[in-house]
């Protein structure tokens, strides 16, 4: 690791384990097309691992999804990403990384506000994105597991996430 202090992120206001995750509707990108969909449409079909990440080109998005993919997490649960990237970038990312997931596109970061996880990017004027965070939701959108980035950058404990997903 590095021999200096990683920059800390300010306090967040994310919903906690036991809370109901706020519902929202945004374009949901699959491998072949995108269409408006709600989080609740997905949880109606079963548990969801909701992963907020940096815009698609930034390396944390790649790290997080490669690690989840390599642990087979998207095979065990509906894995759903959210970032400010456009549907076009999402399609490219999913295809290039071979990730079996669906991504919501939230360019204005309204869902970040809703979830209390806004991350205003330093010296990228006008750009707010989602602070990296992971929520495991059951069919009623109740939060079963939560991780929210404390530092910049910060990454979830992937084994812990995989264990939470496989422990119904």
């Amino acid at each position, binding site marked *: 690791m590095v021999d200096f202090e990683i920059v800390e992120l300010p306090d967040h206001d994310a919903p906690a384990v036991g809370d109901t995750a706020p519902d929202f509707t945004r374009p*949901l990108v699959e491998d*072949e097309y*995108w*269409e408006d*969909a*709600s989080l609740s*449409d997905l949880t109606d079909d079963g548990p969801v691992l909701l992963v907020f990440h940096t815009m698609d080109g930034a390396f944390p998005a790649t790290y997080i999804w490669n690690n989840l993919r390599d642990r087979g997490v998207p095979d065990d649960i509906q894995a759903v990403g959210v970032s400010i990237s456009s549907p076009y970038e999402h399609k490219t990312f999913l295809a290039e990384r071979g990730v079996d997931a669906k991504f919501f596109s939230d360019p204005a970061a309204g869902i970040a506000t809703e979830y209390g996880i806004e991350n205003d990017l330093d010296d990228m004027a006008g750009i707010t994105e989602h602070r990296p965070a992971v929520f495991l939701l059951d069919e009623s959108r109740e939060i079963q597991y939560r991780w929210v980035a404390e530092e910049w950058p910060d990454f979830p404990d992937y084994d812990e996430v995989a264990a939470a997903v496989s422990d119904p």
Partner: protein
Amino acid sequence: MSDDQPAITLYRLQACPFCERVVRVLEEKGLDYHSRFVEPMHSDRDVVKRISGKRTVPAIVDENTGVTMSESANIVEYLENTYEGAA
């Protein structure tokens, strides 16, 4: 996606004038529809090919009648004839 999805699905490309022509008719008639946006790159539109037999958009799937079709002029004519009294 969900069970309460509208019966008409429109496969479209952002800013495609032929697609917008169909949207205008759907809206004039007050028909419920939902859109699936596909890639500009023709060769990447396998989903459209699977449902309609070709990769062109617009294409619609109308579960009210079981009809799937492409070509905006055909779709407009179909909508005019099928939903004559609508809106």
